[in-house]
Structure formats: C-alpha cells, structure tokens
C-alpha cells in the first residue's frame, strides 16, 4: 500500500506542489514569527546587559504608592560611598530630552527612548569627536542622534526638556563600545551635571539614581545588600544584572504579544490552506475513483483505502513542514535584519536562532492541517463501491441537501458563539465563533454558487469563450465553492475590520460636530501614548487674551490613587467653560466652578463607584498628602468626555507635571477660527511638539490611526489571500487537466489560443469575484455585528466602506486574471491531437 501511495503521489506532482505550497506558506508564517521574535528577544537581552555592563549595583528612590519618587540628594551618594566594598558611587541624572531637527521638527523614534543625562565621564560613552560638554550652553550628542539629525561638532541644537526650547552648542559626539552609534536606537544628549539637573529633574542638586561599582573582592549581591542596609527603606537597590533582566523582560513581554498577533494571522493563513488542500484531495480522490475501486475489488479494506489517502496527506504535510520551516527561518532572519536596520532601531542583532517551539509548531501545524483537510476526502474514498471500477467513471452530481443543512447548522452555531462572545466580551468565543461561522458559510457556498456564478458570469459572457468559461465555473459547484470560500476568509476579515473602523470614524466625526463645541484644540504629541507633550500655564493665559478668543479651557492630567485604584484625572482651569465646550448636561449637582475640595465625574463612573453628589472621596495625588474631595457635579454620560475625574485647577500643583496637556478654544461669534488659529500658533513657536488644530483636523488626526491599523491588517492578511489565489490556480490547473479533451475539441473546430485563454480567465475571474462577493457579504455581517456589540464603547454609527469594498472587488477580479495566467497558457499550448486522444 505504501508503495502504491508513493507512486500516486509522484504522478500528481503539479497539483500536490500547488496545494503543498499553501501549507508551506502557512508554516513559513508560523516558524518565521517564532524565529523573528526569538532573535529580537535575545537581541534585546544582549542590549540591556550591555547597557548595564558597568553597573554593579544601582540605587533609585523608591516611589510611594501613587506618588512620584522624591529625587535623591547628594547626601545619599556620600552615604553609599561610605559603605565598605564600594569602589565608586556616581550620581546619575536622567530625564526626557527631545531634540529638534534642522527642519524645526522634533526628531522622533519608533519606540526607542529620547533622553538626556549628566556627563560624568565614567559611563560607557566614549567621545568620538570633539570634547565633553563643560559649559552651561554645551552638550554632547550620541553618534546615532548626530547621524539621524545630521549634526556635527560646532553646530547648534535645540532641545525640549522640562523647559521650553533651548539652544545648545555641540561640543562633542560620543559612541559606545565597538564604535556603535547607539545601544538600541535611542537618541541621547549629555549635559553638564547642573544643567542636566535643572532641565531634566527641574531642581538643582538632585539625582535620579546612583551607579555603584564594587571594589575588588566584593560580589554584586553582597554590595547590594550592604548598600541597601546603609540606606534603609525608601530606596530600590538592585544589581545591574537584575535591572538588565527586568528591562529586557518588559520589552520581551511586548514581543510576546507581537508574536501572538503574528501567529494569529498565520492561523488564518493555515485555515485558508485547509480549504485548498481539502479541494485537492477531493479532486484526487474523484480522479482515482476507478483505481481505488479496483483496489477495493481486489480485497483492500476500507481502512486501507483511508490509510492510503491519509498517508499521502502525511507525506505532503511532512515535506511541506520541512520546506516551510526552512523558508520561515529565512523570512524570520530577513525580517529581523530589516527590523534592526530600518525604522530607527539600530539594534545589534543577536545570531539568528531557531527555537524548539518553531520546529515543533511547524511540524505539528503542517501535518495536522494537511491531515485534517484529507479526512473528509479519505472517508469518501473509503465509501467507493468496488463495482465503481466497472462503471464509466461518471461523477454524478451529488445532491447538495446534506451539505447545505450541515452548513446552515454550523453557521448558526458560529453565529451563536459569536453573539455569546460579544455578550461576555470573551475573545476565544468571538474568534471561535468567527472560524466556525466561516466553515458554515463555506458549506453553504455550493448551493449559493449556482445562482451567484451565473449572475456574475452573465456580466462576463458576452462572447463564446466567456460563456464557456462561465459554464465551466458552474460545473463543479463544490470545487468552485471551496475555492471561492478560501478567498472569502481573507476578504471578509478585511471587510469586517474596515466596517468597524469606518463606523468608528463616522461616530467620532458625528460626536465632534454634535458635542464638541470647541473651535480649536491645542494638544501635544503623544496623547495616545499617555505621556503627552505639555505647555506652560502662562501660554494658556496668553491664548485667553488673544484677539477673537471667547474662552479657553486647559487641563493638566495625571493618574491618581483612590484606595488601591488608579484613576485618570484632569485638573481643569474652568469647569463651566469646559461643560459648555463638551456639551455636558448635569445628571445631578449644578455646573459651577469647582471649589478646591470639589470634583466632578461622569455618571457611569459615579454608578460604578457608588458615588453621588456630596460623597467624600479621598485621593492620593503624585505629590503631597492624601486629600478628601466632595463630589460636586455628575454629568450625563457623554461620548466625548468619559473615564476622567475632573479636579479643580489647584490640584494640578500636586500632579507629576502641572503643565497643560490639552486646551480647547471657543472663538467669539463672527470671528473665523482660522484667523484665531493663525494668532494662537505663534505662541507655540518654541514648542514644536504642540499643535493647534481646528476641529476637523483634530478629528482627522484622531481617526488617521485607523488607516494605519487597516493597512497593517491588510498586509498581514495578504498571505491568506495569496494562499487563496494559489487555490484558484490549483482549481484552474485541475480543470485544464480534466478538460483536456474538450480543449482539444475546441481547438480542433477552430478556437484560437487567445480565445482559450480568455475562456480560462473568465472562469478564474468568476470564481474570484464570487469569493470576493461572499467575503464582502460575510465581512459586512461580521463588521455590523461587531459595531452593534461596541455600541456601548461609543461606536454609535454604522459606516460602510463602499469605496474600499469596490476596491476589493476590483482587486479580486484582477487576482482572477493573474491566477488564470499559468493555467491559461498551459491550456493554449495543448497539442490538439494529443488533447483529443487524452484519456
């Protein structure tokens, strides 16, 4: 039996290569993800251990719960110095410093930090050009910043720190061990110590930490214990190794999540792959009906027939896994290289490694997917009656009743699971529901394919080749349906996401026009990251005094502690003005300026906490002692202002930063917002991180992130669609083989090569467009269901991405044309006489 299986495998090279390719691509995605994240993780671990290479023990002030850590004093440093076993103890000053490029824009990174520190001469940094900063107006730049911003020794550079823009003279450029420009793509500047303290910590004579080195003969652990004992509580004392690990772990946690996302998409690709392989095996079994029946009549048992098909699947799965693993290692290495060299990471890549998980999952996934796909066809093969060997190998149109009923049930089960999932906010139920629903819809496609295909085909069949192509695509509803369903999966997911994002955009736009009664919005970069750039209070005063401004409100923001809970709070300058601008309606209490011990909050938060007007709430702010506030005002649930406690302006003084994070401006009646914008903008000339936008620009900026999300998802789903295209090619190639004699006949009675190619292309386009139409329909349903479920999250409107959907249709038609190229050429090249004689 094994020999027979191998023989039959080899005789079907082409179609097996095509279907195995589907598995190869999926496995490649899986192993590539593992290799990429593993390599990056080890690179980051290396990065941090080199970053802390000359730190034996580090001391930082311990933050009390909810409070900002108190900076270290010189006293602490001398205390550490006095500990036996300490070789050196050097005070570190570090804080955010954002360089401004020569074009006047702030230089950004893709995630790597931007900071400044005090030049001590004892760190890892070595001067490459020039000299260390010595004067109040001097800085040295990390070589990476110098290259990124094209700075040279002697140039000026403007920096944003706790203070507004300030310009320095560059005296030197430094590098790291081995001549590296940076440790990991960070942008750093070195100041003299007093300047660093003033600009980065806001105070003279304070430090953010102490770097301690051990004297000969003292271990790091012993040193840590000794230092900790000397300083007492109030300090975090850690060894450099522990710190390196902590930081690496933090990044690696993020990478793990990234890996899950990649694996999720790999799963989708493999899911699509199952369809393709299922199709191939069904076809192979159908074509082998005679052969299998012969085997049966010669005494092969059902089990042996099943075994032979499953064995075939296992061999394919095994080969595909090996190839996929190899390709995945290549792709993972390539992506890691790209990651480390572009996008401003400048990461020193660790050697490419192949983790065990990659190998195991590659084989598991590759083999399981193939075998799962082969089970149904294998069962069908085993039911072939021995007498079928004697009959003309006609494949009667099996009725679609059973498959349709099963499909309806499965789809309903998927839908139910989806509904429950949304209800319980359970991701596994949601994703499981979607997958099951896909299977259900796929089972329903054969019954749909007849009317749909003839409808789509009608548009394409103006000529005889077109008509033949259309009829051909309707010939085998199951095969057409599964091929189309594979394409449906990718397209429906993109469409679904697209519906949700369009709805979100529409909802935000509606909110902005309906409830945001503000004409200009002043905000800093990094609102989304939670650490926005801020500006000084006196600038807000200047805005208020600007010609044409009716009122201006600003707030500073921070996290505050209520018992054990962290809450988001803003300290607002003018509560009544804010209520007007956000169209807040009182639920209870009255809109009035907040007294120093009053706060306001939205009704849903009040309900959750069980607070009402008059309730006493004790809050711990970043600075100072806990303070008790009285609830003065509760507003009716609003989509534009939710999840925030509103504190009086005086509370801002105890926030980490009392600067304004966001401000809102209403212009006087009859004044144009654009004019006022022109007058307000110059106030931020020295603060390029702050932008002044009118309402529509603000909305656009908020919603523009959705485009990025959609693009990412499209890129990640491209593989699933590519696999589906392979499926179309596969189906067409098989059609060409099966219909060799018909093609020969057509050519014999005078059909031109170009007409043959057109016929195949029409068949291909019909299948692709059918898949796209299904995908759009299912995607719309998924998207609308999701939007309904997210109603409470503020997506109140349903927006349909018509343009995008039309684009997908066009792309699908195009994909059909591409997929047809090879099979069409093959068909056109057939030798007429051989084709007619083909058995």
């Amino acid at each position, binding site marked *: 039996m094994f020999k027979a299986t191998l023989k039959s495998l080899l005789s079907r090279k082409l179609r097996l290569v095509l279907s195995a390719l589907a598995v190869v691509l999926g496995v490649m995605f899986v192993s590539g993800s593992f290799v990429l994240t593993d390599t990056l993780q080890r690179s980051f671990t290396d990065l941090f251990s080199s970053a802390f290479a000359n730190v034996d023990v580090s001391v930082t002030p311990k933050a009390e719960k909810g409070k900002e850590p108190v900076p270290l004093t010189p006293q602490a440093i001398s205390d550490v110095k006095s500990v036996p076993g300490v070789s050196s103890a050097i005070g570190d000053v570090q804080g955010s410093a954002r360089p401004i490029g020569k074009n006047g824009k702030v230089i950004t990174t893709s995630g790597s930090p931007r900071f400044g520190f005090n030049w001590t001469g004892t760190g890892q940094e070595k001067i490459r050009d020039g000299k260390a900063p010595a004067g109040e107006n001097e800085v040295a730049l990390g070589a990476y910043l110098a290259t990124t911003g094209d700075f040279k020794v002697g140039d000026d550079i403007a920096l944003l720190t706790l203070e507004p823009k300030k310009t320095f003279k560059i005296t030197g450029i430094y590098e790291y061990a081995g001549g590296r420009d940076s440790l990991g793509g960070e942008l750093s500047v070195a100041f003299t110590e007093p300047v660093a303290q003033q600009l980065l910590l806001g105070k003279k004579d304070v430090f953010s930490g102490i770097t301690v080195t051990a004297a000969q003969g003292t271990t790091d652990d012993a040193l840590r214990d000794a230092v900790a004992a000397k300083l007492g509580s109030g300090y975090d004392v850690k060894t450099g190794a522990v710190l390196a690990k902590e930081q690496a772990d933090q990044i690696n946690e993020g990478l793990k999540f990234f890996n899950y996302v990649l694996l999720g998409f790999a799963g989708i690709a493999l899911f699509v792959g199952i369809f393709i392989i299922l199709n191939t095996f069904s076809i192979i079994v159908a074509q082998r009906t005679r052969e299998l029946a012969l085997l049966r009549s010669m005494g092969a048992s059902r089990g042996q027939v099943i075994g032979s098909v499953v064995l075939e699947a296992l061999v394919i799965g095994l080969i595909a896994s090996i190839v996929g693993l190899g390709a995945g290692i290549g792709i993972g290495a390539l992506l890691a290289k790209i990651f480390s060299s572009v996008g401003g990471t400048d990461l020193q890549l660790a050697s490419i490694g192949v983790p065990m998980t990659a190998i195991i999952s590659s084989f598991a996934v590759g083999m399981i997917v193939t075998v799962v796909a082969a089970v149904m066809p294998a069962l069908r093969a085993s039911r072939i009656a021995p007498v079928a060997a004697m009959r003309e190998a006609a494949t009667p149109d099996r009725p679609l009743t059973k498959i349709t009923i099963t499909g309806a049930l499965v789809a309903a089960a998927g839908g139910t699971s989806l509904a429950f999932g949304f209800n319980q906010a359970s991701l596994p139920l949601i994703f499981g529901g979607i997958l099951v629903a896909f299977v259900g819809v796929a089972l329903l496609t054969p019954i749909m394919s007849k009317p749909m295909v003839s409808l789509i085909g009608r548009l394409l069949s103006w000529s005889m*080749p077109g008509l*033949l192509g259309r*009829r051909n695509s309707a010939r085998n509803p199951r095969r057409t349906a599964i091929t189309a369903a594979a394409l449906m999966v990718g397209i429906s997911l993109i469409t679904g996401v697209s519906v949700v994002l369009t709805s979100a955009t529409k909802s935000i736009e509606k909110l902005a026009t309906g409830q945001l009664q503000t004409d200009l919005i002043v905000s800093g970069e990094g609102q989304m990251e939670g650490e926005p750039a801020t500006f000084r209070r006196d600038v807000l005063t200047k805005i208020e005094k600007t010609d044409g401004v009716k009122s201006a409100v600003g707030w500073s923001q921070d996290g505050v502690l209520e018992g054990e809970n962290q809450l988001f709070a803003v300290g607002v300058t003018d509560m009544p003005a804010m209520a007007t601008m956000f169209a807040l309606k009182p639920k209870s209490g009255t809109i009035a300026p907040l007294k120093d011990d009053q706060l306001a909050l939205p009704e849903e938060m009040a309900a959750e906490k069980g607070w009402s007007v008059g309730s006493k709430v004790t809050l711990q702010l970043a600075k100072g002692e806990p303070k008790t506030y009285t609830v003065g005002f509760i507003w009716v649930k609003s989509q534009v202002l939710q999840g925030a406690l509103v504190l009086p302006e005086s509370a801002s003084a105890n926030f980490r930063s009392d600067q304004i994070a966001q401000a809102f401006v209403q212009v006087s009646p009859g004044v144009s917002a654009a004019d006022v914008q022109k007058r307000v903008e110059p106030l931020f000339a020295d603060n390029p991180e702050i932008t002044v936008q009118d309402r529509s620009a603000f909305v656009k900026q908020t919603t523009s992130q959705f485009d990025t999300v959609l693009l990412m998802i499209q890129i990640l789903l491209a593989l699933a669609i590519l696999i589906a295209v392979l499926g179309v090619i596969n189906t067409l190639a098989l059609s060409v083989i099966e219909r060799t004699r018909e093609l020969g006949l*057509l050519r014999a*009675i*005078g*059909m031109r*090569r170009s007409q043959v190619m057109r016929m195949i292309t029409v068949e291909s386009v019909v299948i692709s467009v059918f898949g796209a139409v299904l995908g759009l329909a299912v995607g719309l349903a998924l998207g609308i269901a999701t939007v309904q479920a997210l109603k409470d999250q503020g997506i109140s409107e349903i927006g349909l991405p018509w343009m995008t959907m039309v684009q997908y249709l066009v792309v699908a038609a195009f994909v059909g044309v591409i997929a047809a190229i090879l099979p069409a050429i093959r068909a056109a090249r057939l030798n007429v*006489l051989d084709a007619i004689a083909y058995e």
Partner: protein
Amino acid sequence: MSASDGVAARAVDVWKSYGSGDAAVTALAGVSVDLDKSRFTAIMGPSGSGKSTLMHCLAGLDDVTSGEVWVGGTKVTGLKDRGLTELRRDKVGFIFQQFNLLPTLTAEENITLPLAIGGKKVDKEWFDVVVDTVGLRDRLTHRPTQLSGGQQQRVACARALVSRPDVVFADEPTGNLDSQSGAEVLGFLQRSAREFGQTIVMVTHDPNAASYADRVIFLKDGHIVRELLSPSAEEVLDTMKHLDSVVAVPHV
C-alpha cells in the same frame, strides 16, 4: 493549389514520419490524392496504415514531414497556428469517433459553436435545413448527457455542416454506434454530399459504411494502394481481403 476547380482538398507527395533514428515510424510514404468537390470519399485500410494520419494532415491538425497539402484555395503546409486555427474554423468540419460535444452546451449551442467562436452570424435557413435533415428539431435544448450516442453523432454532423466548410472530415464517425444509428448518420452524410454538394472525407473500418461513399481509397503502410468508385459493401470487403497480397508500390 493550381486550383483545378473540382478539387476540395489535395495532398501532393505527402510524407509523414514520427520519431527519429531507429524508432522512426513512417506513417505516410508519399501520398498524393485529389479529393473532388461534392463527393463523399471513404478512406479504408488496415489498422496502422495511416488513415487517421492522412486525415489529420489534410485537415490542418498535424503538419507533414514533406509534401504539400491544400484545402480549398489555401495552402495548408507552412501555415502557423493562427492560420491553421482559422482554416479549421472556417474551411473544415470535424466529426470524431466520440467526445464530439461540449457537455456544458446545449445541442443547438454545440451546433453553432464554430460560428460563435468565429463571431459569425448563424444562417437561420441553412441551420433549419441541417437540423431537420439530422432530425434533431426537438432535441435542440438538450445537453449531450441527455442524448443517445447516435443523437450525439448527429449533432456532431450538424455542427460540421453548419458553417458550410470546404471539407468535412470524419474519423470513424460510426465506430461507437449500433448499426441502426450508424446507418442514420451515414445516410445523412451521403445526402449532404448529394443534395447540398458537401465534400466529405470519412475514415472507416466498416465495408458497409464505405459502401455509402462515392469513392473509396485504400491505404496500406502509408501508401494508397487501390481505389474503387461507388462500390458495394461486398466489393469493398473483397478488396480489403486481397489488400494483404497487394505489394505496396512506393510512389514516385
């Protein structure tokens, strides 16, 4: 072709060999023949004598090793694929032994297929004549799977005739049919030649089938060895029997 008007297709010293070296097989060894217009010609001969090969070469389905082939006013030898395709579409009709029809098309669509492929209009009158002659009027909307073998062959005949080709080639058109259905098809081919002046060339093994023809050409080992005009089935059978003793004379 030195277009002598009475000739629909002509082979001039046609050689055809397959393969090369030791394995080379000479299927046609210098065949020259004129197929007269409006005549029903049968080609006979033992298996492997080159009947099908000759027909394929005449019909532009295969190229010749040497010699020339003409159909109507067109020199077939030397035509490229496009020219050959158009020749087959416009000047030649085909009836194969089986699998003549496209299963996705109705009988009517199958009949008009060559015209549709060529983007030509159907001559309704002629179509009706052909359909009525083959007796398929009430079967036009049926798919091939709904037709009997004889009916399928009649559809194929109708298709071969509907574009009024210069020559209709039929390779054992009745090979798969019982004698009753075979007789219907043969009778129809005979009438097409007599009543409509359609040139027909048919390869057959069956002396009875050959007796419907106006002229029977006998092939042996790639040579034309005999020919009979309007023979009876007995004459054909007799000739076939004695073909073995005939020594093939190479054509000069």
